[in-house]
C-alpha cells in the first residue's frame, strides 16, 4: 500500500485486494500487547465443488460497497467483543486451488472473544457483502455460486440463516 493513495483508495485496497493475499504476512500486523489470543481464518479455494474438480475461482465485487460494508462489520465486531485488532481482506479476480480468497484475523485478550468475533465477521462478509464467486471447473464449465441461498429458507434476501439461528439459540 502506497502512502500516496488518498485515504478512500487505501481503504479499498485494505478490504478488497486485486493481488494475492499472503496470510502469514498479514498476521505480522495482528500482534498487540493487550491481545493474548489471535485467530486467523483463511478461506481458500478447494479442488472439489458440486462433485466436480475445480480449476480456479473468479471473484467479482462491487468494490466501493463491499469495502464500506467490510469496514462497518469490522467496526461492529471490534466494539461488540472489545477486540484489540480486526482485519479482513477479500480477493477479487482469479484465485487458484490452495490460494487465499478471504482472510479474517481477530485479536483479543482471551480466545473466546477472538473465535466468536472471527466467526461473526466471516459469516457476515460471506452472506452480506456484494462479492460474488464464479467456479471454473476442470471440465471447462463454469457456474456463479451459490453459498448464500438463505432467502430460499428465510423468504427474504436481507435475512440470513445464521441470524435466525442466533436468535433462537440458547446461551
Amino acid at each position, binding site marked *: 500500500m502506497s502512502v500516496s493513495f488518498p485515504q478512500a483508495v487505501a481503504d479499498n485496497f485494505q478490504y478488497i485486494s486485486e493481488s494475492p493475499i499472503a496470510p502469514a504476512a498479514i498476521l505480522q500486523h495482528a500482534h498487540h500487547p493487550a491481545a493474548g489470543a489471535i485467530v486467523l481464518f483463511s478461506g481458500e479455494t478447494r479442488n472439489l465443488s458440486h462433485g466436480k474438480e475445480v480449476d480456479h475461482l473468479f471473484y467479482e465485487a462491487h468494490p466501493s460497497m463491499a469495502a464500506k460494508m467490510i469496514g462497518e462489520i469490522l467496526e461492529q465486531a471490534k466494539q461488540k467483543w472489545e477486540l484489540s485488532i480486526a482485519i479482513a481482506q477479500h480477493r477479487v479476480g482469479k484465485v487458484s486451488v490452495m490460494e487465499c480468497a478471504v482472510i479474517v484475523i481477530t485479536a483479543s485478550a482471551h480466545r473466546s472473544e477472538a473465535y466468536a468475533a472471527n466467526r461473526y465477521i466471516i459469516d457476515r462478509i460471506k452472506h452480506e457483502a456484494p462479492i*460474488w464467486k464464479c467456479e471454473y471447473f476442470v471440465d471447462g464449465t463454469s457456474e456463479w455460486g451459490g453459498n448464500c441461498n438463505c432467502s430460499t429458507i428465510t423468504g427474504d434476501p436481507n435475512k440470513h440463516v445464521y441470524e435466525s439461528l442466533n436468535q433462537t439459540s440458547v446461551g
Partner: protein
Amino acid sequence: MKIESYAIARDYFGRSFEVEETVPDIASLRELLAIKNPAAASLLKNTRFAVNDEFIDDSFQLNPADHVSIIPPSSGG
C-alpha cells in the same frame, strides 16, 4: 438512468446500460427488467438493488440521475 450489473446479472444484462423509459421506483424497474429479459425473471426476484452505493427497497423513488446497481445474492468466501 444508468444501471450497472454484477456477477450473474451481468450475464443477462451486460456490465452497464441505460434505461430510457420513465421508471418511478425500484418495483417498476424490477418489472421492466423482467420484461426486457424474461430469462432473468427468477433471478430478479432474489436480487437487491442499490442506488448511489446504498441498498434500497422496492418503494424507493428513482431519479433519472440515479446510479443504480443490480446486486444478485452474494456468494463470497
